[in-house]
């Protein structure tokens, strides 16, 4: 019996020393149908794909869940999409988006004909018609949101685990809250009173530590699909540009 290989073991064992980027994970998922690699990729893509269906395709949340579930099972869990992936043809997430766009169009048009159920049609042209460029941007936006969401959750969990509610409080009130509400941060005195800070040095240390911790959580999230520091920074810069572009719209 062939021993079960985890995706991380498989990546480390890669004979050409390919970095463990999204592409190596995609390769493992596509060639070997490694279930762990597929699970990792599905978990990574699911939140952004769902939000894209709801926000950009304007599907009702329940319908979006049904479409996504069908897509994940049919195209991702089956390993089909990973086998189709080609590094030379651009970002994997663009391929996923294009496939989901085509899949959902086909599925929904079938649904409009047969209103009783969602019918998955085999062999629809997954890679045929590309998504409009603005759809790429919208999906990158959802990708950035999902990434931030995970980084925020990771930071909150780490603070709770380490008993550092003070760091979470500083980050939440001075960085996260103002960013989410697009407002200036609350006054410095509020922070001092709420946390019982005795000197500016304490406030600064908390603030800097909290911001560094979030940066680390963010980089950890990106490092799930980009490896080198340059790749990670480049991805963060690109996502920041996407978010900035959405702000301007």
């Amino acid at each position, binding site marked *: 019996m062939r021993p079960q290989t985890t995706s991380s073991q498989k990546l480390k064992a890669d004979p050409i020393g390919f970095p463990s980027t999204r592409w190596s994970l995609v390769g493992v998922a596509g060639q070997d149908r490694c279930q762990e690699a597929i699970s990792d990729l599905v978990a990574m893509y699911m939140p952004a794909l769902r939000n894209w269906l709801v926000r950009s395709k304007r599907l009702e949340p329940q319908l979006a869940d049904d479409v996504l579930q069908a897509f994940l099972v049919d195209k991702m*869990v089956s390993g089909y999409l990973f086998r189709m992936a080609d590094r030379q043809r651009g970002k994997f997430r663009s391929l996923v988006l294009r496939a989901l766009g085509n899949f959902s169009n086909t599925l929904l048009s079938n649904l409009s004909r047969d209103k009783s159920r969602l019918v998955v049609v085999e062999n629809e042209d997954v890679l045929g018609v590309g998504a409009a460029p603005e759809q790429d941007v919208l999906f990158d936006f959802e990708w950035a949101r*999902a990434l931030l969401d995970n980084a925020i959750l990771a930071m909150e969990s780490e603070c709770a685990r380490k008993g550092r509610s003070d760091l979470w409080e500083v980050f939440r009130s001075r*960085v996260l809250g103002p960013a989410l509400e697009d407002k200036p941060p609350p006054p410095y005195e509020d922070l001092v009173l709420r946390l019982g800070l005795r*000197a500016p040095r304490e406030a600064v240390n908390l603030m800097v530590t909290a911001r560094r911790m979030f940066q680390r959580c963010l980089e950890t999230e990106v490092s799930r699909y980009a490896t080198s520091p340059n790749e990670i920074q480049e991805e963060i810069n690109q996502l*920041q540009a996407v*978010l900035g572009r959405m702000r301007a719209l």
Partner: protein
Amino acid sequence: MNEPTPPRKSILTDASNLGLSRLLEPVDEEIVWCEDDFPALFEHLLGARIGLELDDPTLATRHETIQHCLVSPQREEGLLLAIKKYAVANMSDPGGSLPKPLAKALFLASIASSRLAGFRGFSRLSDVEFQQGGHWCLAQTWVPASVRELVRDALRHSSNEPGRVHP
């Protein structure tokens, strides 16, 4: 493999798109506080125990506030020197605790205090440089009244002293 489970609910709500790019900005340790924070930050600094804020082991047992060290009639040169040293470090250190303008105001306040106390050789700042710095300090709206008064007194004292060269 089981079917994928639905994602958990996002922390980021629909109404939270506008400022999100701020979360991806690189950490700039020089921009921890904005200028709106300066008045409260300076008041907090003045009210902090010198041993706590300066993080100097030799001062660990000193409980005087920084404000007290600056304005007390019984000023101690050693404490004022420690405050000046701390301010200078924050003026030049990119990862310092204080915003640079606050550090500069604190630096000038320590010199103003030493001048009023008559500590000779406390600073290499010339009269002209001190007067320029003092006027800069008075022009900052976030500088608290107690420090303004201190600097104003020192400027007046400096210009009244015989033999001083006025700008």
